[in-house]
C-alpha cells in the first residue's frame, strides 16, 4: 500500500480516521495547534485527545468566489462534534442552500489530495451527511 500523509497534523489516519486536539489538562479547552499556555485558563499542561467523528452543522457557507487556485463552489461548515467545534468542508452534498441545512448530522470522512513524486498520497478530511 502506498504511503500516506495527513493534510494537517491533527488528522490521524488508520482504520478509524479521526481528529486529535491538544486538551488543557486543567480546564479542558481544546486546540488544534500548539499552545504555550491555555488561552482559556493559562495553565501549561496539555494532553492529546481524540475528537468525536459525528457532529452537526452549526453554521455553513457555500463559497462561489475564492482566491485563484481554490476550486469553487465548495461548502464549508462549523461542525459541533460532541461539544468541540471543528471546521471542515462538506462533501457528498450539492453546493445548494436547499440541500445543506443548519443542524444537519454529519460524519468525518477522508479525501485524497493526490500523490506526490515519491508516491506519497496526502489525505485530507471533510464531513459528509450522516444517515
Amino acid at each position, binding site marked *: 500500500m502506498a504511503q500516506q500523509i495527513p493534510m494537517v497534523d491533527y488528522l490521524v489516519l488508520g482504520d478509524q480516521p479521526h481528529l486529535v486536539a491538544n486538551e488543557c489538562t486543567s480546564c479542558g479547552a481544546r486546540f488544534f495547534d500548539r499552545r504555550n499556555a491555555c488561552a482559556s485558563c493559562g495553565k501549561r499542561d496539555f494532553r492529546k485527545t481524540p475528537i468525536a467523528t459525528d457532529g452537526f452543522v452549526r*453554521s455553513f*457557507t*457555500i*463559497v462561489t468566489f475564492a*482566491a485563484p487556485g481554490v476550486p469553487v463552489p465548495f461548502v464549508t461548515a462549523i461542525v459541533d462534534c460532541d*461539544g468541540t467545534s471543528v471546521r471542515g468542508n462538506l462533501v457528498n452534498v450539492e453546493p445548494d442552500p436547499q440541500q445543506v441545512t443548519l443542524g444537519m448530522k454529519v460524519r468525518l470522512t477522508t479525501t485524497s489530495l493526490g500523490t506526490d513524486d515519491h508516491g506519497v498520497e496526502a489525505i485530507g478530511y471533510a464531513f459528509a451527511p450522516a444517515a
Partner: protein
Amino acid sequence: MASDDIWILGIYMTKFGKYPDLDQVDLAAEAALGALDDGGVTIHDMGVLAVGCLMSSNAGIGQQLQKQIGQTGIPVYNVANACATGATALRTAIMAIKAGECEMGLAVGVEKLAGAGLLGSGGQAKTTGNEWTPKGRLGAVAPIDGRIATEAMPGVFAQVGMEYGHKYGGTSFELFARISEKNHAHSTLNPLAAYQKRFTLDEIMGDMMIAYPNTRPMCSANCDGAAAAVVVTGAKLRTLSLEQQRRAVKVSASVLTSDPYQEACQILPDVNTLTRRAATQAYEQAGVGPDDLNLVELHDCFATAELVHYDNLMLCPEGGAVDFFQSGAPWRDGRLPVNVSGGLQSKGHPIAATGIANIWEICHHLRGEAGARQIEGAKVGLAHVIGLGSACGVHVLEKSGL
C-alpha cells in the same frame, strides 16, 4: 464641561472612492488638514499624532504625514489593529490626553484599497517540487483555504450570520439581502459614499454570489479614503471660542476590547463576545443605554455581520435581531436608525479610515450638519468597528449642551 472630559473638536472624512492619482499620504493629509480646519486649530496645537494605515502599517505613514503637513516633533504612534485600526488611532490620542501628556491630539486613518479584491485569503502558496511537506502551525501539506475551510472574509462572516440563524432562527437569504437593501438605500443621501446607488431586493439577491448568503452588494466595498479627528480636553475646550465649544462633540465613552477565550473561537472568529463587552463598558462609561441612542453606525462589513451586531450592541433583546430588523427600526425613519451613512457595504470600507469615518458620521448628525440625511434632533450616537483577530472599538458620542 468637566475638565477631564474628552471632546472631538474637529473631524473630517474624504469622499470615499477611487483615487488613482493620490497616495496614502495625500489622502491622510487632506483628512488631517480638514480636521484641523474644522476644529479651528493647527498642527502646532497638537501634542500627539496617532495614525493608522493597515496595508502599509510598517511604512511610518504618521511621520510621512508630518512631512506633508508639519514636522513639529510631537510623538507619533503608527497603529495597526485590523479593521479597528482607525478607532485604535483615535483611542491612542485619547489615552495620551487622558494620561495628561497633552491637551490636544490628532488621529488619522487612511487606506488605499480600491481594486483590492478578496481579503483574508492567503492565496495558494504551492508546495515547491512535487512533494507533500508539512508546514506551519498545523503541519499542513496544502493550503487550508478551500480544502478545510474558507479563509476569505465573505465566507467567514457568512458563517457568523448563519450561526446566529442556527442559534435563534428566523434568518434567510432574503432577510440578509434586505439589510443590504437598507444600507444601499441610505447611501443615496450621502455624497461622500463610494457608491450611492439604490438596489432593489431582486437586484441584490440576483447579483453575483460570493459566499452564501452574501452576494456582491452585501459585501463591504473596497475603496480609498481617509478620515481624521482632533480631540481635546474639556479644560482646553473651555478656553476656545463659543463656536468651537458649540460644535464640539463629547466623547462619552471610548472603549477597545479584544476577544476573550470562547470555545470555537479558534475555528470561527467570535465577533460577538468582545462586541457585547465593549458595548457594556461603553454604556457604563457614558451613563447611557441603548434606548438613549438616536443613531448607530456599526460594522456592517457584510450583511450577515450587521444582523449579529444589533444583538451584540444590545439594540434589541438577546436573540431578537431578526425582529428588530423586521420592525423597520434600523431604517433612517425607524426607531433607531443604523448605518444612515450607507455603511461599509455602500459608503465603502477603506479599512483604517472606517473607525474614524463612522465617528465623523455621528458627529455630523449631533452637530445638525448632516444635510439631507440629518436625523432630526440627534443627541446621542454610537460608533462601532470590529477588526478580525479580534479588536472591537465602541465610541459613544454626545451633542454639546451649548
